[in-house]
């Protein structure tokens, strides 16, 4: 029993190590990517410098993605979606794709539920940020770190 256990542990250790080694080249060969500064400036064009608070927004992305070409993503904002208090828009950004924007989604009180889903591309393991603009002018955000094993082919020769 003791022996069997340790073999399994060794195997897992090796597998983990292999995964890390496999990820390194993917990280180093990306030539063009949005920088955190570009991410910040893309967010500023939406918020116009207003304060963005953390909370209310729930960003649902798998933490470990095998294929960066199609990653399911759902954003849900806690809101009554009433005429006096609703989500006006949801904006999704990334840190390391060639471009910081992913999508802007415009809603209204008639939406009933402030939730959108789509499928996105990720060129690298990175941070995804979702920002919601509420009807009172406040901004709320959530961010998730995603590990991508096979990156979307942004610079692949075809």
């Amino acid at each position, binding site marked *: 029993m003791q022996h069997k256990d340790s073999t399994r542990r060794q195997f897992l250790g090796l597998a983990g190590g292999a995964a890390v080694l496999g990820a390194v080249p993917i990280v180093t060969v990306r030539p063009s990517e949005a920088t955190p500064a570009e991410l910040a400036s893309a967010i500023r064009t939406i918020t116009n410098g207003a304060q963005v608070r953390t909370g209310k927004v729930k960003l649902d992305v798998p933490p470990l993605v095998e294929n960066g070409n199609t990653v399911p993503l759902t954003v849900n904002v806690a809101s009554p979606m009433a005429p006096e208090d609703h989500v006006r828009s949801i904006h999704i950004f990334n840190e390391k794709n060639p471009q910081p924007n992913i999508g802007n989604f415009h809603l209204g009180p008639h*939406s009933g539920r402030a939730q959108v889903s789509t499928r996105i591309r990720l060129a690298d393991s990175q941070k995804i940020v979702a920002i919601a603009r509420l009807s009172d002018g406040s901004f709320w955000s959530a961010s998730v770190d995603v590990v991508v094993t096979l990156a979307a082919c942004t610079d692949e020769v075809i």
Partner: protein
Amino acid sequence: MASALINVPAKAKRGDIIEIKTLMSHIMETGYRHTATGEVVPRDIITSFACRYNGTEIFRADLFAAIAANPFITFFTTATASGKFEFEWIGDNGFSETASASITVE
């Protein structure tokens, strides 16, 4: 040949919050890929999606290259009256497609 898949409930009670699922077949070429000779493959993406419910716009999305091929978008709306949902996708190279679905609200 572009084609759309739309999923809207056929029937709903007045005031129900319904989910609408849409998928448009499109390559969504990012403009960041190269051919073997080093030329950039020009960008060809859908840049805008909108949904109208009996003529009123209820949902709009600006899409970027980071949206996966065959853009799949789901969102919600409140069923207020029987009628028609009209969907419109607009993109590079004059891409423009529409689709519609009807709903009966009781």
